[in-house]
C-alpha cells in the first residue's frame, strides 16, 4: 500500500471517530464547573474563622481522624514518582494536608512566607523554623495579593467595589470602587487597613515595596481577546492591558495616584523607591510589541524598554512573548531578565531569551542566542528567575530543568516526594540548593513543599508549633469572624451543599461524605443545650475549663475561645440515649498542641 493510500484510509477512519455533537457534554461540563466553583475548602481557612456556631458542629474528634489518615496509608501515600525510578520519598498526603497554604512566596529580604487561613508564617532558615502572626484573611482570602518585605513588614490588598457595580464595568459614578490595603509592621501581631477610593477599573491590585515606607500598588486590567477568540485574526479587535499606579510614602497608610499607562501588567517590581518595572501579560505584549516597561519617577511616566533581537511587532500570528518573572538585579546596576518566546505555527521551537544589563536597565544586551526549550515532553514551561538566578523550566510533572548560566547549560533534575502528574503552582529557589513550591493537594487546596537538595527530593513544610505561639492579644476582626460563623450556621439549614463547601478539606475528610455531614447537621439542629469544655485533644483528660451553654452559646464561646483563628470543627456525641456526641473545634492543619473546645450534652 502506498503512503497516500494509507494516509487516505487513516483520514477517513478518523472521520468516523469525530463526535457528532458536544451539546450534552457542554451542559455536563457547565454543571461540573459550577460545582467546582462552589465555595472551596481553601477559602474556608480564611472564612471559617471560628465556627463557634455550635450548630456548625461536625463529626469526629480530631484525634480520631489523624490516626485514620495515617492508618490507611494505602489510600493517601502515593508511590514512587512515575518516570523517575528514584528511590526517594513518596508524596506524603497527610503531611501535605498539614502544610496547606493559601498563598506562598519569597520575602524581599530573603526567606519564605506563607499565608494559611488567618496566619501569616515566615521562615528565614529555609523552612526549618517558622514564625507566625495573624493574617486578615476574612475578606482578604479571595483575590488577595500579598507582599512580604521581611518577617515584620507585610501588606495585602484586594480591589473591591460597592455592591451593584461590577469590577470590570466602567464606573458610572466616582467612589464606587476602592482598593483595600492591609499592613502590618510587627509580623502580623496587629494589622491596619487603609481604603483608597478609585475611579478607574482595577482587575488586579498587586503590590511591591522598596522598603518599609515606599511602596506601590499596580491596578491593572488585562488585555482582552477580540470577539472571535484568542487567535490572530482578532488582534486588531482586541484591547491592550493597562495599569494605574498608586504610591505610598508612609508604609501604606495613605495612597495617591502616581500615573497610568497602556501596557502595564500586574507583574511589577521596584528596584528602588523611584524605579519600577512592569512586565505586561503575554497577550498584551503580543498586541503592543513591548515586553518590558520602566518608570524612573516613582510610577508617574512609563516607557517601553528595547530588548534587541526580539521579533518586531506586529508579531506572527499567535506568537507569545512573555516575561512571567523578572528582571532580577543583584546590585544597583547589574541585572538580568529572561523572556519566553513562543511562536505558534512558524516551526520555530519555543525559546528562552536572556538579557543582561550593567547600567541599571537603561540598555539590555542579548546574552545568549535563544535557547530552545530543553524539555522534550508536553509540559507546562515556566521561566522563573530566583534570587540566585536559577532559571527554571518546569519540566512537566516530574522534575525541573535549571540553568545558572543564562541557558548555556541545563541540568535536568527528576524529583521525588512531589505529587504525581501535577505541576507546581509556584516554584522558586531561595539559594542554589534550597527551593520552595506550592503544589495542588486536593480540591481547592495547595500545600507548601520544600527541598534542600536543589529540587531532587521534596517534603511538606512543617510549621511546628509556631501557630500556637501567636500572641493572645493579636485577636482581630471578631465581627467578621462572627459574621462568617453565622453565615455558616445559616447555610447548614438553607443550603447544606454550600456549608459543605465551606468546610476545610480536613473537615470534609473527617465527615467522609456530604451526606454524613448533612445528617450530622440535622442531628445537631435538634440540640438546645450544651456544656462547653476546653481541652487538648492529645491529652483529653486535661480539661482546662467547663461551662454550660444555653441559647447564648455564641457569646459564651467567644468568652472562652480565641476568635481570631481558623478552626476545623469535628464532633462526636458521647453518652446519652443518642449516639455519643462531642463537639471539637480545632485549628486547621495544626500539628500537636492544639487548642480544642469541646461541647458535650449535660
Amino acid at each position: 500500500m502506498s503512503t497516500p493510500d494509507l494516509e487516505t484510509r487513516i483520514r477517513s477512519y478518523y472521520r468516523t471517530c469525530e463526535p457528532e455533537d458536544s451539546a450534552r457534554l457542554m451542559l455536563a461540563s457547565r454543571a461540573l464547573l459550577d460545582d467546582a466553583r462552589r465555595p472551596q475548602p481553601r477559602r474556608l481557612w480564611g472564612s471559617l474563622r471560628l465556627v463557634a456556631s455550635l450548630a456548625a458542629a461536625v463529626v469526629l474528634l480530631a484525634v480520631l481522624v489523624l490516626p485514620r489518615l495515617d492508618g490507611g496509608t494505602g489510600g493517601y501515600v502515593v508511590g514512587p514518582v512515575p518516570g523517575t525510578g528514584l528511590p526517594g520519598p513518596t508524596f506524603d498526603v497527610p503531611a501535605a494536608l498539614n502544610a496547606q497554604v493559601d498563598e506562598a512566596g519569597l520575602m524581599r529580604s530573603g526567606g519564605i512566607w506563607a499565608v494559611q487561613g488567618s496566619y501569616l508564617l515566615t521562615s528565614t532558615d529555609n523552612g526549618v523554623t517558622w514564625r507566625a502572626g495573624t493574617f486578615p484573611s476574612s475578606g482578604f482570602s479571595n483575590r488577595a495579593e500579598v507582599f512580604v518585605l521581611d518577617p515584620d513588614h507585610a501588606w495585602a490588598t484586594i480591589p473591591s467595589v460597592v455592591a451593584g457595580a461590577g469590577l470590570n464595568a466602567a464606573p458610572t459614578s466616582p467612589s464606587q470602587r476602592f482598593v483595600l490595603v492591609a499592613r502590618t509592621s510587627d509580623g502580623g501581631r496587629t494589622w491596619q487597613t487603609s481604603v483608597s477610593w478609585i475611579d478607574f477599573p482595577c482587575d488586579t491590585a498587586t503590590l511591591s515595596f522598596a522598603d518599609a515606607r515606599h511602596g506601590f500598588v499596580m491596578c491593572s486590567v488585562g488585555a482582552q481577546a477580540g470577539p472571535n477568540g484568542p487567535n490572530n485574526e482578532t488582534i486588531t479587535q482586541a484591547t491592550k492591558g493597562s495599569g494605574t499606579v498608586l504610591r505610598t510614602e508612609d508604609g501604606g497608610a495613605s495612597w495617591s495616584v502616581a500615573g497610568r499607562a497602556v501596557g502595564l501588567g500586574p507583574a511589577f517590581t521596584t528596584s528602588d523607591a523611584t524605579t519600577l518595572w512592569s512586565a505586561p501579560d503575554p497577550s498584551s505584549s503580543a498586541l503592543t510589541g513591548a515586553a518590558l516597561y520602566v518608570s524612573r519617577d516613582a510610577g508617574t511616566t512609563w516607557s517601553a524598554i528595547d530588548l534587541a533581537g526580539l521579533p518586531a511587532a506586529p508579531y506572527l500570528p499567535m506568537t507569545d512573548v512573555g516575561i512571567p518573572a523578572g528582571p532580577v538585579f543583584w546590585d544597583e546596576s547589574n541585572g538580568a531578565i529572561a523572556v519566553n518566546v513562543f511562536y505558534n505555527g512558524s516551526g520555530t521551537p519555543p525559546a528562552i531569551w536572556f538579557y543582561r544589563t550593567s547600567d541599571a536597565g537603561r540598555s539590555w544586551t542579548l546574552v545568549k542566542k535563544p535557547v530552545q526549550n530543553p524539555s522534550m515532553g508536553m509540559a507546562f514551561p515556566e521561566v522563573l528567575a530566583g534570587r540566585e538566578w536559577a532559571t527554571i523550566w518546569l519540566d512537566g510533572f516530574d522534575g525541573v530543568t535549571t540553568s545558572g548560566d543564562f541557558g548555556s547549560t541545563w541540568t535536568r533534575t527528576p524529583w521525588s516526594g512531589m505529587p504525581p502528574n501535577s505541576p507546581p503552582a509556584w516554584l522558586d529557589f531561595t539559594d542554589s540548593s534550597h527551593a520552595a513550591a506550592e503544589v495542588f493537594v486536593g480540591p481547592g487546596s495547595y500545600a507548601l513543599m520544600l527541598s534542600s537538595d536543589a529540587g531532587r527530593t521534596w517534603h511538606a513544610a512543617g510549621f511546628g508549633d509556631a501557630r500556637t505561639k501567636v500572641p493572645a492579644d493579636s485577636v482581630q476582626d471578631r465581627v467578621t469572624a462572627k459574621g462568617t460563623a453565622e453565615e455558616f450556621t445559616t447555610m447548614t439549614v438553607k443550603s447544606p451543599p454550600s456549608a459543605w463547601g465551606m468546610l476545610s478539606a480536613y473537615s470534609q475528610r473527617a465527615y467522609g461524605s456530604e451526606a454524613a455531614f448533612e445528617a450530622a447537621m440535622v442531628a445537631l439542629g435538634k440540640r438546645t443545650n450544651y456544656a462547653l469544655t476546653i481541652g487538648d485533644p492529645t491529652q483529653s483528660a486535661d480539661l482546662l475549663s467547663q461551662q454550660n451553654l444555653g441559647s447564648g452559646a455564641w457569646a459564651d464561646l467567644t468568652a472562652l475561645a480565641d476568635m481570631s483563628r481558623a478552626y476545623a470543627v469535628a464532633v462526636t456525641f458521647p453518652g446519652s440515649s443518642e449516639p455519643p456526641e462531642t463537639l471539637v473545634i480545632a485549628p486547621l492543619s495544626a500539628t500537636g498542641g492544639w487548642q480544642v473546645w469541646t461541647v458535650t450534652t449535660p
Partner: protein
Amino acid sequence: MIELASVRPREDDRVAELLLAGIPEAHRLAAWILRDPIGAEDAVQESLLKAWSRRRTIRFELGEPHRWFMRIVLNVCRDELRRRRRQPVAMTEPAAESGWVPTDRDDLERAIGRLKEDEQIVLGLRFGRDLTVPQIAAQTRLPEGTVKSRLHYALEHVRAALDAERRAEEQKR
C-alpha cells in the same frame, strides 16, 4: 535582589468561560486521540477539572489559554492511552465471532491502538484534527523534526501492523 510581586489573577469568570468555549474542540480532540466516545467525554471532563484546579498557573499562558487547555487535554489523553496499554482491554479474536466481517475500520483501529501513546497523539492531530506538522509542533511544544519522525514511524508501524494482519489472514485461508 528583586522579584516580581506574586501575581495570580483570579478572574474565575473569564477562565470558566474560556474553558467552556473550548469544550467542543476538546471533545473532538479527545475523540480523535482516544477513538472511543465514552472515554473522550471522560477525558474532557477530567481535563476541565484539571484546568480549573490549575487556573492559578494560567498567567504563564495568558496569551493562549485555549491552547493551554488543549495541552491539558492532550496530557490527559496520553495518560489514558498509557493506562490502557498497561491494562489492555481483552480483545476478542475477530475470527471467533460468528458473522464477523473484517472491515477497514477494525484493522486500522487495532493497528493504531498498538502504537505508542505519542504516536497515537501525532496521528490524531495530523489526520483527525488535520493539523500541519508545524501546527502539531506548536500544539505539543515538540520540535518539528520530532513531530515529523514520530509521524513517519507511526505510519510505518501502522503499515507494518496492517501487513502482519493481512499475512495472518492469508495463512488462515
